[in-house]
């Protein structure tokens, strides 16, 4: 796992297209979500994140560790989101001066987003149909409703749901039922 992470970091530094695809897929949406919390506008959040990723791609910054990369991303997304607000004068937020020491508020916000990112990447490892069924059931749809909407049998819905749980369980170690009750109560 460690070697794998190192390889991806290296690939990101060298602008390798395969590494960048993996990187993009795992960070784009969580960063958008984070920017969206500040901006309250999905389209602008997307623009901000896209800009941050593009300028990273064009830059020659080298990251030694995944932590350094993630820190950079959060800093850049917050800064650019706030800059946008300031330019538009939507709010009188002052631009944060970045220090390694965060305010209590920002610290909590970023910690939360990191947790969301972990959950997001876990669910994204499920095959497409299984993930879709899982999300629909998270939205509170019944097995029957899901079956009708996707045009599959209720038996398939049940089976796919079962397999999705099993996967989550295996990736989360022994105290599985707690997560299941959390995600799928």
């Amino acid at each position, binding site marked *: 796992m460690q070697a794998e992470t190192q390889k991806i970091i290296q690939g990101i530094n060298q602008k390798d297209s395969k590494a960048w695809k993996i990187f993009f897929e795992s960070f784009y949406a969580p960063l958008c979500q984070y920017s969206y919390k500040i901006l309250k506008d999905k389209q602008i959040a997307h623009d901000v994140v*896209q800009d941050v990723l593009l300028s990273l*791609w064009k830059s020659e910054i080298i990251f030694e560790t995944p932590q350094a990369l993630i820190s950079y991303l959060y*800093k850049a997304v917050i800064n650019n989101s706030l800059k946008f607000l300031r330019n538009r004068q939507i709010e009188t937020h002052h631009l944060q001066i970045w220090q390694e020491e965060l305010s209590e508020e920002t610290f909590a916000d970023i910690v*939360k987003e*990191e*947790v969301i990112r972990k959950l997001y990447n876990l669910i994204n490892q*499920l095959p497409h149909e299984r993930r879709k069924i899982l999300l629909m059931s998270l939205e509170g749809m019944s097995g029957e409703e899901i079956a009708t909407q996707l045009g599959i049998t209720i038996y398939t819905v049940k089976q796919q749901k079962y397999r999705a749980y099993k*996967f989550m369980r295996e990736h*989360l170690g022994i105290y599985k039922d707690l*997560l299941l009750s959390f995600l799928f109560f």
Partner: protein
Amino acid sequence: MLNHHGHTIFKAAEYVFKFLTGQLTPQEEAEFSRLKKETGLDKRWSQWENRQAWIQDLQETMDFDTSAAYAQFIQQTQKSSKRKRWLQIAAIAILLITVGGIGYYLNRREIPNPFKLTELIEPISHKAYIVLADGKKLELQEKGENIQEQDGTIISHQAGQLVYDPIEKKPQETIYNTLNVPRGGEFRIVLSDGTGIWLNSESSLKYPVNFTGKNREVFLSGEAYFEVKSDSTRPFIVHTSLGKINVLGTEFNVRDYQDEQEVVTTLVKGKVKYQDNRNANPEIVLQPGYQVTASQNDPELSVHPVNLKLYVGWKDGLYIFRNLTLAEIMKTIERNYDVQVVYTSEEIKHLRFSGDLKKYDRVESFLRFIEIGGDVTFKIKDKIITVTSK
């Protein structure tokens, strides 16, 4: 590193994640409650214990269409790399003008143009490189030369094929070669026991130069078709990322691409046994015409009868796609033609198509065929295929 009061966001996020998934040990719990107090996270805690809120955030995150964003990103990077390329051309041009005056008289050879003006997507070719026992890498060109290994084995190389001639005296030590086939490549190899193997694009195989042990063992990543020479005294074993395949003498196909997270073994002739490496250790004996799938996300093996042509056709140059998602089909295209595919929306990836692709044909005609029958259009530029819905 981003921190507050001496605690990094990473440690804190790890604790919160473990808390939510019930994985905190009692010791970690103590550390976590200290961290919460010191960083002020405890002020949020009542909010964070509401799990419904996490689900809502998670769902909001899922609403951002990563595929579409990625397609847009790729387009933008292309634009800027083109600008960069022009800058390079300009820089070189200036260099050539200044140096050229002097150089012209010193060396009258023509300077080749280093920039391709048009780019065609090349159909598959015989390209590969081999890592010899001493670690030396050798590129295998279209026109081959024989190679001699350190134990005296002669490896004859001709257009897209390597053949190992066994040596008379059994060597004591087992030495290995690794054959790597990149995207857009394909290669055939005949091992010293006479076993024939077709190695598909983006695949690699590690094997002994001479089989010295009790078993004949090889290591595969990617896809290969095996025609194993029968030898009941020495079983042939293919190691994959999730398990191994034991055979005596048969023909079968193994597909184990890392990004597909599964190992698919399809049996054409004879008998093979698939044995999983993981905890439950399931194993299965396959009959001809059957296929076993071991998935990273599922500890149970699944077995079905299949239409063999769909899975082994590639070795004879024909991909047959039947009711597959566009994402599945395009993955094969990416590997075989060394291109990158991007989608302008997540939904397109899951549309289903059927069609036949002749491996050595240009990919464009296949894409036009899919376009006519479906709701998508393809744009090809700089080895990137962008898929849009009509």
